[in-house]
């Protein structure tokens, strides 16, 4: 399925979308940019930390609500668009439900199990759970101990980038994982963005590395380079300069608009984006030192 079709079909206005679940790597920028191009509105964005992508979607006016532990730009600083939306309501007001990384992972884990909540020892005494629909005080029925309870989160869709997948949706993800498993299993639908589409036998040869049951995956999109400027282990490194550049240019609404025009609205798709990035720069990011995993034999 094309990225454009997948976003059009499975991520309507008003969706609650989990993205960037590996933290700073494997961020599906291509999917976020496609949602911006399709002028999606009233999204709820769900993630652990978001390194720049949520800021861009907020800047483009796609977002009504944030449920996350951290939104900004990890190597460069605060998220300017996030600030403008939260402080001035520009381009539109957003509702913010703050989490910590641990508590959002527990919320999604509870959602993945179809359970109403999980308890947490992180959070008491913090202002995060105060006046927050996702937290409530509870009691352990075993010893009467007070516990903080975290309400289950069940995103409408989780967009998960992987290195390789088969056409049915069985996928291999390697490197750091973050909350990808919990987020995908908690979601009603999973969309997989793959650097490579491979024969099913490749995936099934290593079933321990498969991320989700195939029957949970709604769409598989072949999208090489789809995570740039975030890194993909084995494929390309992080393009630090991109983060610095967006940070500089997004200081003003005008600069942000110009950035979005250049890198999102004015490119038709990820292939055009990579062309604009330039073959030389893209090739440089793909110069890697090999680090092949020791073989494993599932002999039977």
């Amino acid at each position: 399925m094309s990225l454009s079709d997948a976003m059009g079909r499975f991520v309507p206005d008003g969706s609650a979308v989990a993205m960037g679940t590996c933290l700073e790597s494997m961020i599906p920028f291509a999917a976020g940019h496609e949602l911006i191009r399709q002028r999606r509105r009233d999204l709820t964005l769900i993630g652990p930390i978001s390194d720049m992508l949520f800021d861009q979607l907020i800047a483009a006016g796609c977002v009504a609500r944030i449920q996350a532990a951290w939104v900004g730009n990890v190597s460069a600083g605060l998220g300017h668009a996030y600030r403008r939306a939260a402080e001035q309501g520009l381009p539109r007001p957003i509702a913010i439900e703050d989490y910590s990384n641990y508590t959002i992972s527990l919320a999604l884990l509870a959602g993945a199990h179809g359970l109403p909540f999980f308890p947490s020892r992180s959070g008491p005494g913090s202002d995060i759970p105060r006046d927050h629909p996702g937290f409530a005080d509870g009691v352990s029925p075993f010893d009467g101990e007070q516990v903080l309870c975290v309400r289950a989160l069940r995103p409408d869709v989780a967009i998960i980038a992987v290195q390789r997948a088969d056409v049915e949706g069985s996928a291999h993800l390697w490197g750091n994982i973050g909350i990808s498993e919990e987020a995908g299993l908690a979601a009603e639908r999973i969309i997989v963005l793959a650097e490579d589409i491979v024969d099913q036998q490749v995936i099934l040869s290593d079933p321990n590395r498969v991320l989700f049951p195939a029957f949970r995956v709604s769409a598989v999109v072949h999208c090489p380079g789809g995570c740039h400027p975030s890194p993909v282990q084995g494929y390309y490194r992080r393009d630090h300069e991109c983060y610095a550049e967006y940070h500089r240019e997004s200081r003003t609404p005008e600069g942000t608009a110009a950035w979005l025009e250049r890198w999102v609205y004015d490119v038709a798709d990820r292939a055009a984006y990579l062309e604009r990035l330039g073959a030389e720069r893209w090739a440089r990011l793909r110069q890697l030192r090999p680090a092949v995993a020791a073989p494993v034999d599932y002999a039977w």
Partner: protein
Amino acid sequence: MVLAAAREIRDGDVVFVGMRLPLIAFSLAKLTHAPRAFGIFENGIVRGTPSPELLYTMSDTPNVAGAHMCTRLSTVMAQLGRGLVDVGFIGGAEVDRFGNVNSSYIGPRDRPKVKLPGSGGGCDIASLARRLLVIMSHERHRLRTVVDYITSPGYLAGGGQRQAAGLPGGGPKALITTLGVFDFDPDTQEAVLRSYHPGTTIEAIQEQTGWPLRVSPSVEETPSPTTEELTLIRRLDPQGFWTRAGAG
């Protein structure tokens, strides 16, 4: 600051590294006095060796290479939950004298003057690490009597309130700033200046601190970096991305 942070890591510690400057502090400690320390990163990485290259983020590809483990965020957080993380680092925009950290909102939450990025793993580390190390740029508007919002709980209002709130972790062990290092009084749980960095004075620190400074009777100058430490910092962060003045 990075040196003082590194020195708080003991050999054999399990260290929850966090983002930014602690990335360097962990590497520095590993290469000097704490070769058997393990680093935990909230993206799910566990490392027994420093990353082979400077990291801009914990998820950069070099941080995976040679890692002891790459697992789920929830699994490494569970190590915190079980009380098995000896030391954790957090930063933020504001800290009060009880070590409570704000990295969420300057001004009221419903109409903030500045919306900061948020907790990340900060609240988790502050809640659950055995020894919490707070790292802060030392400026008067950051070291405040009361912070606008407690993202990451320290000793709350002191006097045992942290324990009463049901927080199992040990609470702040040190506040490490660009000007000095604070301990926390075991009784009142207030920050007490333990040392001032070379080139500054207690008076200058008071000027940049929003609460009336408490100074340890045994206050001293922070030990200067050794040549080895300086060499290593330059090797770990050649362009001073995280360790130059104002960085991190």
